[in-house]
């Protein structure tokens, strides 16, 4: 060794002259390379036989270094390949001979040994790895060891198929409930990954995915035959989680997407339709029974597959539409509008809750719910009236004692239904009427609630929509002030006469019908005339007409045995009762003549005075439920009541009678005409020339926030405008209209 180091330093010195000396030295000992290689070969054997403790690393490293230095790198490298290959072939034999279950154990054990040996061999040959390998395009030692292992062990004909079968069999056993050695599995799959991603994929992952797909295809077939939808989904979810867990325990993380998509395809995508439509347990049943857990599971599982969510959404939509259609066309239910609207609200709440708890508040589901409601609410043209009646009920009494927040909640919910309405103008008509009644009768529960509702309508539909409603509130306030002023100034003149409370309603703001006033009793008439003089005196240029059909009166009556009662009645009823101050019995015709109340109203008024038990201050002959023109009425001296104050309501159907409804429709249609015309003119003014279909489309777009105009009506309005020379047809193209300035 000493001699060698000397010759090296010699070469250092000589290098300065010429390289020839170097060549010379290498040829000195031709057996040197062979001898050195034998030492190294022996060491590799010892390492594989776990006898490394007797080896000197320094000596081996130096030997390998010298071989490379003296240009025997090729010999060293090829020797390494041959020696390692021989060992691996021996290992292959021993792995092959392992019995049954010991096969994997043996493979794992040998793999660990090989890795350790490889590390040590690499240590010895480190210098070769650094200098010889990169310049001669060889594979580095570590990689070489892995490649040889792959070629001689994993791809050995007696091992390759057996390894694959063993691994797949273990997975299958785990799927059927056995406990397997996961640590061993992890080591083996880790080995395949270490050998390169293509080894892992070809020798394990691909067959694993194929086998899994067919396993789940079979299992899903079996489940779907015997399970209901809910428990099928539970099983699918469990399988999916098992596979994810399996990947985390002993497979490559990249396998997760692949295996889950296989499970999703086999267990969900292939059975989607059947699952949602399953008898007695499908999606519709889950919705009916509020099965949040099942619905949530279905959502999260279906979300994983293409078209999954749209499948749920479509079924839900068609179910909601059908259910809604049945609801709004149920004539029994419609008899009580309050109940009907409450029912709609409950339906909405129920499905809102389902979407928020089970469907992750999915926007597309919310949209589907909204479009379904919009669809069926407008199937019934009574919906606007019903919603207004519901509000009326709530604002009259339903909200009594409710806190501000609770009121807001109710109003917001109603507004949501309102948004679905196409005929918002019809709603407005009814709402106005109902509001007027509430205001005039002083029946409104809370002014704040009323105003809050109007603010909501205003934000939804704009100023125009609510300006008249707000006018009504102003009128109420002004009336109050006027009355105070009237009594302050006139109290001396009025004396002991009846007290008058006048509400001055601006024409146009209120839903008043021009009806002829009835004949008021002379006592009242005097006060009324005084008020008229006062009012017209303070406001010049106004006209005052009495709406006797809308008023109320409190009168005192003394019955037999001196029973005194205060009766709260309508103006009409008051007029009728006052007649009995001077007569004991009057025929229908006499009453009609004296009061000039319209027949329909008079009948209602008499019915409520004579036919309602407990309120029958009049007695009718003959006794019957209905009023006929031949009836005779008497003051009911025997009337008793445990209350001092008796409110005698007017028999008014809460819902409108058929002819009234027709009338309302007609008025709505009538009101729409100028709006449609205005829209047409606005559009034509800016576009000058437009064809028929575009006009219809634009008018519909402009007006849809209030109502959905009928194209036939639009056409009629266009024709009317042509007649009045706002528009003309184009001479050449009859489909085109021109605006005439």
């Amino acid at each position, binding site marked *: 060794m000493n001699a060698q180091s000397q010759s090296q330093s010699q070469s250092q010195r000589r290098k300065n002259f010429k390289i020839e000396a170097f060549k010379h030295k290498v040829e000195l000992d031709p057996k040197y390379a062979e001898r050195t290689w034998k030492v190294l070969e022996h060491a590799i054997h010892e390492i594989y036989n776990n006898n490394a403790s007797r080896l000197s690393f320094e000596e081996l490293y130096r030997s390998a270094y010298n071989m490379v230095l003296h240009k025997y790198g090729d010999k060293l490298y090829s020797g390494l390949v041959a020696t390692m290959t021989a060992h691996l072939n021996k290992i292959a034999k021993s792995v092959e001979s392992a019995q049954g279950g010991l096969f994997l154990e043996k493979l794992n054990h040998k793999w660990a040994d090989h890795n350790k040996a490889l590390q*040590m061999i690499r240590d010895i040959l480190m210098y070769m790895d650094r200098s010889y390998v990169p310049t001669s395009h060889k594979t580095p030692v570590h990689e070489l060891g892995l490649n040889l292992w792959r070629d001689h062990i994993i791809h050995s004909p007696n091992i390759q198929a057996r390894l694959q079968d063993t691994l797949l069999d273990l997975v299958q056993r785990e799927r059927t409930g056995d406990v397997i050695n996961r640590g061993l599995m992890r080591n083996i799959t880790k080995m395949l990954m270490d050998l390169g991603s293509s080894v892992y994929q070809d020798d394990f992952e691909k067959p694993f995915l194929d086998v899994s797909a067919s396993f789940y295809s079979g299992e899903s077939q079996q489940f779907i035959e015997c399970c209901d939808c809910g428990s099928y989904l539970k099983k699918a979810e469990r399988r999916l989680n098992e596979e994810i867990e399996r990947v985390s325990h002993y497979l490559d993380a990249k396998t997760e997407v692949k295996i889950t998509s296989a499970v999703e395809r086999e267990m969900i995508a292939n059975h989607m339709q059947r699952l949602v439509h399953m008898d007695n347990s499908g999606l519709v049943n889950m919705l009916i029974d509020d099965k949040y857990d099942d619905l949530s599971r279905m959502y999260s599982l279906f979300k994983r597959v293409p078209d999954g969510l749209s499948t749920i959404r479509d079924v839900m939509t068609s179910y909601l539409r059908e259910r809604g259609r049945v609801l709004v066309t149920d004539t029994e239910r419609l008899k009580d509008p309050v109940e009907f609207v409450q029912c709609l609200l409950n339906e909405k709440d129920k499905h809102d809750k389902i979407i928020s708890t089970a469907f992750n508040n999915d926007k597309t589901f919310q949209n589907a719910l909204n479009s379904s409601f919009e669809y069926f609410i407008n199937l019934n043209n009574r919906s606007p009236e019903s919603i207004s009646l519901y509000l009326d009920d709530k604002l009259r009494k339903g909200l009594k004692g409710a806190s501000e927040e609770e009121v807001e909640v109710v109003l917001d919910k109603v507004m949501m239904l309102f948004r679905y309405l196409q005929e918002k103008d019809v709603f407005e008509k009814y709402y106005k009427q109902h509001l007027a009644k509430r205001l005039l009768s002083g029946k409104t529960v809370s002014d704040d609630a009323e105003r809050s509702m109007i603010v909501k309508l205003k934000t939804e539909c704009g100023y125009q929509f609510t300006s008249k409603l707000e006018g009504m509130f102003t009128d109420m306030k002004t009336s109050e002030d006027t009355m105070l002023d009237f009594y302050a100034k006139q109290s001396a003149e009025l004396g002991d006469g009846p007290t008058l409370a006048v509400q001055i309603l601006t024409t146009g703001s209120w839903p008043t019908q021009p009806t002829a006033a009835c004949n008021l009793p002379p006592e009242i008439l005097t006060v009324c005339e005084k008020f008229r003089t006062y009012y017209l005196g303070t406001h010049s240029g106004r006209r005052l007409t009495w709406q006797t059909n809308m008023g109320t009166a409190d009168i005192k009556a003394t019955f037999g045995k001196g029973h005194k009662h205060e009766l709260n009645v309508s103006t009409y009823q008051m007029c009728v009762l006052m007649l009995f101050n001077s007569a004991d019995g009057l025929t229908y015709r006499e009453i009609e003549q004296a009061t000039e109340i319209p027949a329909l109203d008079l009948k209602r008024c008499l019915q409520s005075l004579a036919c309602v038990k407990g309120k029958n201050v009049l007695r009718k002959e003959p006794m019957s439920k209905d009023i006929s023109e031949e009836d005779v009425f008497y003051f009911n001296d025997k009337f008793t009541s445990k209350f001092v104050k008796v409110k005698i309501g007017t028999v008014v159907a809460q819902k409108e009678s058929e002819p009234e409804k027709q009338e309302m429709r007609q008025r709505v249609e009538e009101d729409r005409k100028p709006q449609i015309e205005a829209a047409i003119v606005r559009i034509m003014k800016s576009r000058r020339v437009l064809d028929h279909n575009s006009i219809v489309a634009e008018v519909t777009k402009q007006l849809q926030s209030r109502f959905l105009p009928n194209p036939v009506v639009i056409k009629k309005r266009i024709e009317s405008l042509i007649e009045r020379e706002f528009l003309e047809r184009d001479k050449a193209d009859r489909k085109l209209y021109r605006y005439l300035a």
Partner: protein
Amino acid sequence: MASRDRVRFNVGGQLFETTSTTLANAGRESMLGALLDESWNPGQPEYFIDRNPACFSTLLDLLRTGALHIPSNVPEKLLYREALYYGLLDHVRGAKWGPFDGNTLRLADSVPGRAPGDGTAIRGAPDGGCCVAHGSVVHVYNWMLEERRPISLDYQQVNDVGYIDANSIVITARERLGKGDGGMAVFSAATGELRHRFRVEHGRQPKSFTAGALSLAGLDDHRIFSSCKGRLNEYGIGVWDHNTGQQVDFFYEHPGCSLGDADKLQWLPSKNCLMVATLFPRTDNCFIGLLDLRDKSIPWCWSDAGITMNLEDKRVLHAIAMEDGHSICVINQYDDLGFIDLRAGNTNSAGTGVRWSSRSKLMNQKVPYEESCYPKLATHNGQLFSCMNDSISVFSGSEHVLTSTLRRSYGGSICDFSIGGDRLFALHNEENVFDVWDSPPCPII
């Protein structure tokens, strides 16, 4: 505990004692790391290593202190050889010179060339080696400045060279008439072997071409750009992916701006554009433009076309985009620096737009040498470098103040220089010698 940590070596007869903690600095992937690894019965009273004790001592000190001090009796090359034996060569390289700073540069070495004259280009490698394009051959040096096997592309006139990484050199070469050779290829720096030849296709037909100036896009961007001249007027900029080796794009020359003859290409990541400069004296008129390869547009360009020039007029001879991407620095025959603002929009109005610094009048007392070279520019970490005649000037700070001048006594004027691997390499014209400048490692305190 302390004694168990202690390790004794007998290196070539001389005893050394150290600790396993010190040796751990060598890393597991070194001979000393393997020696003490538990797979090799460690814990012997003494390890014998049959190597030079003086070198071992130097290397042991390197492991102890992280600093390299080579005693005068140890030849540098011997130390490198020993470091390679122990697997500590990277440690030595890391300790040999410090982080690059133009103001602390010292001459580390001067390496004589093979033949005088016609040096084309010098490029620094990322690991501190370099290569010199010389006529039709590229000489390659590792960081120890030992020459490796020279490389060539069929012995064609080499136009430009560049490092893709420490072990891959790309070369562009001129095509010989009628031979269909030339072009561009990647070689192994270690062995000089051809790895891949880049092709150019026009209309799906592979065509032979002359490749000129080169530019590499950057670390994560695998594109290489080169100016190309085909025989059938297929002039423009070729773009390849050096990972796949395939051509990915070609920017055909627009009329009025010569791209196929470009002197300088530079990729500007901040603008997502390629700067192309074709300059005097290659062409009569200078053209500098930014190319947007995505829509094949030229969003910015500058030219001095349309001005009649006298010999004495200032001509733009080299250009470099500043690192901030806001301006282009240019230099003229009087060693004046000038700046063109990239943010000012197109400055097509002939030749205006260059803001020349007035520094030059003070600088240029002497007449340029008879056999002078055209000046060149480079930037590094905010510093600007220019070479003129036999010296390199270093400008620092945002105002580009002259802070250092690098000059060596012989070798003639500098024809090219390059910064790479924390070193500056300057190639001299007359003697064909190149100088290596680097910054010393951090001082003791």
